[in-house]
């Protein structure tokens, strides 16, 4: 309060012209704009490259054997089509995308799907690999997780839990069961003490599978894709 009054008093003594005030602010804004544009243009390609690398790494991890991938999104007719971000497309208006993985011979290895679901603390973000031909979840990577350290974070730290998702049947749907009670291929053993986080992961998988399944099947039929014959 007193500071403000003092300021006003001092201002009354020798008031700088409004022009000078506006000029100072305008100049400060202009200079800051210049610096920011410079740094932005310099760091943007590096940041985008980082993000692309991280995504690539995650996709290769959840789809074993993958060496290249295609980005797909739903087109206006509700069909999957290859997605190329046009420079005009606005941030925030990009469609949701899924990733079709392929191995060295150009054979289909699976689809990587990203999803988010409220867990114990906050949204859990997961990228998972889906073998659309064998109808199985084949890989799993937690991208975003603020669950309780030591309990909820076992959804990516607990080896046994992660192993649930290397060969998990998705039909009729994925079901969480207590530890040690897994009998069917579509069951996931929940983590003791972190049931809510485990269930959130299962819910996330089911939701996103239902969301994409039909479109993926239509795409596979249309393009006559099948998985590479397994030797086992």
């Amino acid at each position, binding site marked *: 309060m007193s500071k403000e009054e003092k300021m006003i008093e001092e201002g009354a003594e020798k008031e700088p012209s409004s022009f000078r005030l506006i000029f100072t602010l305008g100049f400060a804004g202009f200079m800051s704009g210049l610096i*920011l544009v410079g740094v932005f243009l310099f760091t943007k390609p590096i940041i985008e490259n980082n993000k692309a690398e991280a995504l690539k790494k995650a996709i290769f991890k959840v789809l074993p054997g993958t060496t290249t991938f295609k980005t797909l999104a739903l087109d206006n007719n509700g069909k999957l089509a290859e997605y190329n971000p046009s420079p005009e497309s606005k941030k925030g208006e990009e469609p949701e995308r899924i990733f079709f993985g392929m191995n060295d011979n150009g054979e289909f290895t699976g689809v990587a799907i990203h999803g988010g679901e409220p867990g114990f603390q906050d949204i859990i973000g997961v990228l998972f690999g889906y073998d659309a031909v064998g109808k199985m979840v084949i890989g799993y990577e937690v991208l975003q997780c603020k669950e309780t350290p030591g309990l909820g974070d076992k959804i990516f730290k607990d080896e046994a839990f992660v192993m649930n998702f290397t060969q998990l049947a998705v039909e009729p749907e994925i079901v969480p069961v207590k530890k040690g009670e897994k009998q069917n291929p579509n069951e996931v053993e929940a983590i003791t003490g972190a049931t809510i986080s485990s269930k959130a992961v299962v819910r996330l998988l089911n939701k996103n599978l239902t969301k994409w399944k039909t479109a993926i099947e239509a795409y596979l039929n249309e393009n006559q894709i099948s998985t590479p014959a397994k030797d086992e």
Partner: protein
Amino acid sequence: MNELIWIFISALLVNNFTLSMFLGLCPFLGVSAQLQTAFRLGLANIFVMVITALASYALNTWVLIHAPYLRLISFIIVIASAVQFVEMAIKKLSPELFKALGIFLPLITTNCAILGLALFSTNKGYGFLEGLIYAIGAGLGVTLALVLLAGVREETRILQIPRLVRGAALNLIIAGIISLAFMGFAGLFG
């Protein structure tokens, strides 16, 4: 609808701005000596947060898609103007309240809770309605935390507590205990 309720509860209790994200601690510890002042500051906070949500939505939709690097600067300037507006309105409508809140009203500008709200709701990609619900939840959450701490602090004034412990140290430990209690809200929507 379900998602909106989740956003609201999450901002209000589970991820309470003050108690679990440590945003807006300066007014939290500074203006929590009296219950009534704390409550009023909380209300001012809700008001500014709602304005912030509207302003940041407008900025995100029309300005920042063309110039993302101006995000921080434009958020701050718009929020500061909004706070100025609240300050003028309060000064005119209730000089008493203006006196009670003292220097803390202009300080809401440099309050991390306000800027944090704008940044988090942008990062989470919230739309108009979601952002608004998020702001109201967060504002109520901050108010709740302020009122709880002020209530406990009023009680401690008449207790016999060593002089050394009184002040910020005691307030922080009380806040820690309240925060501990709030952890019980986690998993509310599992």
